[in-house]
């Protein structure tokens, strides 16, 4: 897999943030055996921002989450959270961050309340203060009436909300979430983003990994990860603005030849992704008319759309988002087969 179109991250964004940053990642690489999962990633997240790490599976975003959440120690590069070095001041960092895992982390045999109390104790909270925090948070996530039910009896969405309450119990300044909307229906996803937005207004920095475009859309800024590298970092709008105008997708019988002819005729550089010819144009609808006129009878279907984050991903990496994902999935499967598990 060669990504020819990878561009370098904006150095300007990293410099703009400065010392008061909530999260500072610089030159972080990580390898599992001989596979390089993160390759010199650097970025900085100011306080109160909702920052998204967008990438397909295998892009390195989960590894980055693990390192940021202190689950695994960093190998090279430096990470700081609220000015505290993650490797040297791990305990101080742990007190300041809340972690919401993608896989459930609740004890199903305990009630929602008991899970929170247990978690609070691990963070050194106790007594009436802890009880009050549990009550407030369960109320805030709308589960006060289910507080004394074992979490195994709660629905998937309700459990996610307890997970969120768990991550927030010790009032962290930075909340780190791994694919937070896993298992949530669209309504619950929107609720989650609304909730994160209200947290961010209170000054809590939210850093989340996602592979969902619509979730990424609601982040303040996005880091696009592809094969362990930071492909781009910007606001969702700015990322989309990199593709001026519209994206014209054309279905034809033989896309490669068609792309070559379009290039010759119009002097644009079409991409063929997944058998579809993609052309970025500022005057999409007019261009479609020109295409139809120039190649009568060859076009089977054509679509003109505002650029999406997926288009940005394709532009930057030369891969269709899901394609990159399934390739790495296949690679991972191969690997686990070889390990004989």
């Amino acid at each position, binding site marked *: 897999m060669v990504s020819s179109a990878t561009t370098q991250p904006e150095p300007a964004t990293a410099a703009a943030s400065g010392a008061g940053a909530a999260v500072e990642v610089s030159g972080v690489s990580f390898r599992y055996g001989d596979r390089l999962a993160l390759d010199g990633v650097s970025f900085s997240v100011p306080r109160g921002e909702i920052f998204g790490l967008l990438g397909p599976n295998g892009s390195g975003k989960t590894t980055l989450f693990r390192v940021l*959440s202190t689950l695994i120690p960093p190998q090279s590069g430096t990470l700081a959270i609220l000015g505290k070095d993650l490797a040297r001041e791990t*305990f101080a960092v*742990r007190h300041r961050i809340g*972690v919401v895992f993608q896989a459930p982390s*609740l004890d199903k045999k305990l009630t929602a309340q008991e899970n929170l109390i247990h*978690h609070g*104790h*691990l963070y*050194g909270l106790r007594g009436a203060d802890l009880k009050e925090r549990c009550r407030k948070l369960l109320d805030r996530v709308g589960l006060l009436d289910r507080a004394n039910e*074992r979490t195994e009896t709660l629905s998937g969405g309700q459990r996610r909300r307890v997970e969120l309450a768990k991550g927030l119990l010790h009032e962290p300044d930075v909340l780190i979430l791994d694919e937070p909307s896993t298992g949530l229906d669209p309504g619950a996803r929107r609720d989650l983003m609304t909730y994160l937005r209200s947290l961010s207004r209170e000054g809590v920095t939210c850093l989340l990994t996602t592979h969902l475009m619509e979730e990424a859309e609601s982040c303040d800024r996005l880091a696009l990860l592809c094969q362990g590298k930071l492909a781009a970092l910007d606001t969702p709008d700015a990322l989309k603005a990199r593709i001026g105008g519209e994206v014209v997708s054309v279905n034809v019988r033989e896309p490669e030849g068609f792309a070559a002819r379009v290039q010759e005729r119009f002097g644009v550089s079409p991409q063929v992704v997944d058998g579809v010819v993609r052309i970025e144009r500022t005057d999409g609808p007019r261009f479609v008319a020109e295409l139809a006129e120039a190649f009568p009878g060859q076009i089977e279907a054509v679509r003109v759309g505002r650029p999406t984050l997926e288009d940005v991903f394709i532009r930057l990496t030369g891969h269709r988002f899901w394609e990159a994902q399934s390739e790495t999935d296949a690679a991972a499967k191969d690997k686990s087969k070889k390990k004989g598990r």
Partner: protein
Amino acid sequence: MAAPAATGHFALSVYTLAWRELVRFFRQRNRVTGAFLQPVIFWALFGAGLSASFRPDVGAAGVGYAEYFFPGIVVMILLFTAIFATVSVIEDRREGFLQGVLVAPVSRGAMVMGKLVGGTLLATLQGAIFLLLGLTQDIAFTPANVAALFGVMLLLSFALTGLGFIFAWRMESTQGFHAVISVLMLPMWLLSGAFFPAAGAPAWLYWTIQLNPLTYGMALTRHALYLDPAKSSAPGVPGPELALGVTVAFALVMFALSYKIAGRRVAGDLA
């Protein structure tokens, strides 16, 4: 938020982790029933069936087999409950609970200690319930030997939970753990003097028994039950001081190894 010092809440963490082990246990009714019924059945069947043909030469008083076997069952309960308690390590990892503990500001020592204390309390509690059955035997229970027995049970359970932890930490499935139990734990118990005395066994067996750390825990339990070396001493049964010394060392070594092994991240954490 006033953040406590890095390990300022060591005791609180140990308490809450151990508390959770107990709550989990009592909320799984089949575990509760099984853990209590199995030894009772074992003791009733073996004790009654073997007493007619088996005459161990234990102590001057010449106790019956059921009585000889009784402390053996206590140790078996401790061994199995303590070791099975550490199955929760594997479950915690598989169910994802462990990851939350690993990113909490809890020292590794507190995490290990919480797990071991939880298993220790569970095992001791069940041992204590079983001791009540001893009332049917000619064993005199006094505050002194009951206190001694509790001390021994706590110490031995701690060592055995540590032993289970060492195996459980790196395992990805509970099936694998069962293999360890049948290959390691069962022989360990059989060759501890719980089932038959070392005296009279062939030399290789005799020495295997002497090298088994559980032999000393077994002897310690016998000594604590009678508090009278004349009744509990026999050829091949370690004396009280040696038994105590080896068992304390066993517990310390198991904790140290558990602590060491818990510093490793295993593939399961990264699933």
